[in-house]
Structure formats: C-alpha cells, structure tokens
C-alpha cells in the first residue's frame, strides 16, 4: 500500500524525500552503466511494464486485495539501479497523475517501495547466487526468495519511520508486529509471482534477465549429433 499524505509528519516526509532524491541520483548514474544510452527508452518501457504488473490485484483475504510491488522483480530482471529507477518513476507517475500515494509522501514511498525492495531484494539475490550451484534453474527460486525478503524489509523500514514520525498514537512494537505479520503474507504472494515470472522469462529469453547474465555468459555452446 502506498503511504498517503499526513501519515508521517512533515519533517520525516522531507527527510525521506532527501534520502529518496539521493538514492535516485545515484541510481541515475549507475543505470547508465547498466543500460548506456538505451536508458531512457528501456527504463521507460520497463517502468510501464511494472505499472501494468501492479494493476493486477490479488485477493489477500478479509475483503482487501494486494498487488505486486515489483521492486525485487525489476531488480532481478533489469539490474538493481535500473529497477530502482523504474519503480521510482512508477511511483512518481502514480502520485502525480493518479493521486495514489501522497505527494508529500512521495519520498517515503520511493524509499520504501523503490529503494528498499529493489536493493534488499538484489542483495539477497546475489548472496544466494554466490552460494548456490551456478545453474539457470536456480535463478527463479532465488528471485522468489529475494522477493519474499524484500516485502517484510520494506514493512520493517516503514515501522521504523512510523516510530520516528508517525502521526497516530499506536505502540511502535504493535505496528512492527502487525506490519511484519501482514507483509510476510503479502511477501509469499510476491515471491510466488516473482519466481514464476522470472522463471517464465528465463525459460524463453535468459539473456534478458540481468540476474542470469553471468550464467548465460558461462554457458558453452553444445553441439549434439542426432543418431541417423
């Protein structure tokens, strides 16, 4: 869920805005190394894809629905910095054109949904890749675990922000437990969908999955002879 206006107090919103601007600034520079002069059209199209993927709502229970956050998915598919940029652009568009997520909470949303999910997801993804066998088959499950971790990670950071600048007198510990419990559930959905999507792309075009690129490059051309 996107944080609306007035959920965190003004100083906290401004502070997260500064953090978000710094993170996006770094990402802009690093994305150029991931995509060179293709950055604008490629990141734009991937952002449109992330937006489309977020449109599909899943029933979570109790009459509410959740949707994919897509930070970890984008990080695995196009790299962490481009992924961060794409999700951030989606959030800016949603706040400016759809009033989804507050305009003063934009920094908070970019930090939570863009920076934390993309970076936490990518760190977990890389760490797992380092210890798992180097096979293409491991990419999708690894991405799923990364996606699973990324959602409660964002929830934990939100609870921290709420403890600092929350505007409702709810006990911080209570918020943390509720947020974590709820987002572990959402994380499972995020993990399943992310894993399946990455698996589907790896099966068809492994060269497009940035997280799989080292494995694709290491693959040797195999020439088999068919028995006549």
């Amino acid at each position, binding site marked *: *869920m996107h944080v*609306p*206006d*007035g*959920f965190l*107090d*003004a100083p906290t*919103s*401004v502070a997260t805005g500064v953090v978000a601007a710094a993170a996006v600034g770094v990402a*802009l520079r690093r994305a150029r190394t991931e995509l060179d002069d*293709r950055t*604008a059209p*490629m*990141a*734009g*199209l*991937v*952002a*449109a*894809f992330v*937006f*489309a993927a977020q*449109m*599909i*709502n*899943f029933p979570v229970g109790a009459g*509410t*629905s*959740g949707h994919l956050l897509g930070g970890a998915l984008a990080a695995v*598919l196009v790299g962490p910095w481009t992924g961060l*940029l*794409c999700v951030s*652009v*989606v959030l*800016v*568009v*949603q706040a*400016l*054109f*759809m*009033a*989804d997520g507050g*305009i*003063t*909470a934009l920094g908070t949303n970019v930090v939570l949904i863009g920076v934390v999910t993309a970076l936490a997801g990518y760190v977990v993804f890389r760490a797992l890749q380092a210890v798992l066998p180097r096979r293409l088959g491991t990419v999708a499950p690894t991405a799923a675990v990364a996606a699973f971790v990324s959602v409660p990670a964002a929830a934990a950071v939100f609870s921290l922000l709420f403890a600092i600048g929350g*505007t*409702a*007198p*709810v006990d911080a510990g209570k918020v943390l437990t509720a947020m974590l419990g709820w987002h572990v559930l959402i994380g499972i*959905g995020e993990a*399943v*969908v992310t*894993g*399946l*999507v990455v*698996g*589907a*792309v790896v099966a*068809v*075009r492994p060269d497009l999955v940035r997280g799989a690129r080292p494995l694709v490059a290491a693959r040797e051309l195999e020439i088999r002879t068919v028995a006549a």
Partner: protein
Amino acid sequence: MGAAHGHRLHHHGHSAVHRAPAHVKILVLVGFVLLVVATPRDWYAVFAAYAAVVVGTVLVARVPLGWVLRRMVVEVPFLVFAALVPFVAEGPRTEVLGLTVSEPGLVAAWGLAVKGTLGVMASLTLAATTEPTDVLVGLRRLRMPPLLVEIMSFMLRYLDVVTADLGRTLTAMRSRGCEPRSPRHWPALARSLGALFIRSYERGERVHLAMLSRGYTGTLPTATGGDGHR
C-alpha cells in the same frame, strides 16, 4: 493495495487553473499539501479553510465535483485503515456509539483521514487540469534530472500500449476459462507477465533503434523547444 489505477485522469478544459504554468501548479500543490500535513490536527477551522480552497480551485477549474469524487476511490483502503486506528491506539478510552475506543486514536484517525483526503483531492486537481506532457515540462523546469524526465515521458507514452497489451492477454485468459486473479492460475498469469516483460523490453530496444536511426545521441531534443513552452 485496493482500487485499480485509472490512466485518463486529465479533464480537458480552458479555465485559469488549466492555463496556469505546470511548474507553478506543482510547486503550489507540494507547498499546499506540506502545509496541510504540518497543520496540527485539532485546528478544525483551518482544515475547513483548506477544504474550501481545494473545492474552490476545482470549481474555478470547472471540473465537475462528481468527477473528482469518483476518482477518490484510490484512498478507500487508507480510510479503512484510519477507521481502525481508534481501536488499536493507546490512551484513555471513550464511548462512541456504544463502542469503546481510544480518545487520542479518534483524533489521530480524524487527522489521517482529513489530511489524506485533502492530499488526494489536491493531487487530483493537478492531474485533472494539467496534460501529462505539460507536467513533464514543469518537472524539467523544476530541475528534475533530464534523464528521469525522459524515462517518465517514455513510460507515459507507452503506458497505454503496454496496459492494453496486458488487457488483451487477460481477456484471452478469461475467454479460456482462466481467472488471472485466482492463485490457482498464477502460473499461467506469470507466463503472461513474463511474455509482457519480453514484449516491453523488446519494444524498448526497437524504440531505441528507431531513435538512433533518427539521430539520437543520448539526449532528447525537447519537443517544446526548451524553456520557451507557451
């Protein structure tokens, strides 16, 4: 969480609000909402004044109020959350309609709901009165990094293409007895999303090649001739 994202939020018009430069409107919006967020929540009269300002702007812009209200459904999940706050908040209890709720929680819920609602209404007013391309020009004038504005412009330009692509896929799934929302059919949905990613990525590559063939060198010429927009 919650409501679907609508895309066509612009309401065509020629009022003073429509004609105002986009960067001014963005600055006013951010300043106004920051002011709303920073206002202590028990200054009830001030919030009435804020509401009057927003509604007044909507009326001056000649955007039908119902049009704005219908698009405010994005905040419904949040209002549900705000309604829960009095029940989980700390502090002395009080009786409202036979329910025992936290008194500071009740005030907090009011604050959340009124600030969130004013923010949504103000943002919708900007969206309703400003063409997306003008918003981009405004953001560029406000010194948003050019690369970020370019990414946004490509996203907005191809948003309808990509979402329509997804829409056709979902229609095809449904016509084959597959319900994309149901976890039972997630594997099929994921393959569709995977295909959508590949299609979007390859479309990005084709767009880039088309740009190169038209002399793209890494920076976009501004369609409106730099800062001399209108």
